[in-house]
């Protein structure tokens, strides 16, 4: 458990000092929002609310892929991945530390993106903000869990830039589906439906347990 906290602390401190991942994800997210704005046909504000959740979550997922691709970038320098692999005990705690730090980072980027998205697409995200924030927080658990595992698997590959999106995006589709349903309901002021939250909790549980158990083998040679 101490290893999880140590890794969480290390990742957040190093990110705060370099801001590598944060800047890359924020710039990418803002660019995607701008591109969608230009690609969008003119439509009424009410009609836009129907499509906005899908656009927002596609932006979130692509930004997450960018961030997850850099999750182990610091470990590649000076072979620090070996230092992690040398930690005694269950390596699943290392996974939890890494995934936790990524969760904090991705959630922060998503909050900033939501603000810009609301301005560009004239969507009132304050309607049902609590439900929306809950949905994002829960969905991010699944995204960060499976993303951290796949990032660790692909980091030593020569084709890691291509391999990670190819492996990760299909696993995120179930999360995307439920998140869009939930966001549509919260933007319409209907609150967060349990029918959207329930599948997310199940997916989170599956990805979390699977990644915790498999991380030991990923760090082995």
């Amino acid at each position, binding site marked *: 458990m101490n290893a999880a906290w140590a890794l969480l602390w290390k990742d957040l401190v190093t990110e705060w000092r370099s801001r590598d991942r944060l800047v890359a994800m924020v710039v990418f997210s803002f660019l995607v929002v701008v591109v969608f704005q230009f690609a969008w046909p003119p439509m009424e504000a009410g009609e836009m609310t129907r499509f906005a959740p899908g656009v927002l979550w596609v932006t979130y997922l692509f930004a997450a892929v960018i961030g997850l691709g850099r999750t182990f970038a610091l470990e590649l320098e*000076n072979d620090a991945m070996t230092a992690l692999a040398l930690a005694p005990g269950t390596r699943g705690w290392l996974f939890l530390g890494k995934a936790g730090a990524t969760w904090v980072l991705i959630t922060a980027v998503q909050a900033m993106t939501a603000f810009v998205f609301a301005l560009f697409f004239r969507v009132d995200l304050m309607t049902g903000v609590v439900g929306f924030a809950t949905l994002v927080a829960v969905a991010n658990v699944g995204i960060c869990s499976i993303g951290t595992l796949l990032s660790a698997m692909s980091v030593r590959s020569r084709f890691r830039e291509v391999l990670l999106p190819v492996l990760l995006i299909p696993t995120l589709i179930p999360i995307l589906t439920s998140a869009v349903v939930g966001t549509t309901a919260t933007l319409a002021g209907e609150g967060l439906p349990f029918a959207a939250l329930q599948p997310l909790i199940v997916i989170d549980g599956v990805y979390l347990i699977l990644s915790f158990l498999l991380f030991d083998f990923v760090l082995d040679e």
Partner: protein
Amino acid sequence: MTPVRLRGEGVAKRFGRVTALRGIDFEIEPGEAVAILGANGAGKSTLLRIFAGLSRPSEGRFEAIREVGLAEREGGANGSADLARPDLRGAVGYVGHATLLYGELTARENLAFAARLQGADASPARLDGLLAELGLQDFSSRRTGTFSRGMAQRLAIARAIVHEPSVLLLDEPFTGLDAGSAERLSSQLSGLRARGRTLIVVTHDPQRGVELADRALVLDRGLLVAHVARQARPGAEDVPFAAEALQALLARFAQSVGSTGSVGVDSADAGGSGA
């Protein structure tokens, strides 16, 4: 610091079609200083990573045995004395080709992180003491990305011993160091050894191996081709444990051992090829 004995029987390691180790036997007692010598590609680093619990043998048996466990067994206690790989990782300190440090963290932060990963005492007083021991007390708040190679290597050793491991594994620790830094590192390693740690040093430089070690395992293309000791074993001829002898041995095997050959050379043979 629990004494640990390392033992291997027929240890082989393959990476796809490449065979790094071809079935070697060894036994390393607690407190020994052993050099693993050989040319590039001999399998030295692969063997060291098996010692560290970072890699599993493809064939054969590797065991790390706690001495306390042996005593417990003699006392009638049940249970195996073998260390499981997760526990073995806590009993060894590892210094690799790279420093295993984070350039964005300061020297003290790197040590604190390593200590917490290992579940060891990460109090500032202890970390500062360790930094002072390695001569880095004036640089504790400096980010390690700005360190020279020699400073980074000393910090890498501090990181490796932060949890008081009983076995210290070093993979080419003198690479990239100038003569002064190498000398200083050598004396620090001797100091660590004097406190009862097992020291296993991988090097292609027989001179360094002779300075630090009591005996040497010489590898060539995955085979253990010679086993040379500073003190002759009972019943065996005296062995000149000198850098020149080991250099000659390495050169001889580099020329003569076929990639599939199985060659056994005892310590007397090694002596015969010496200076």
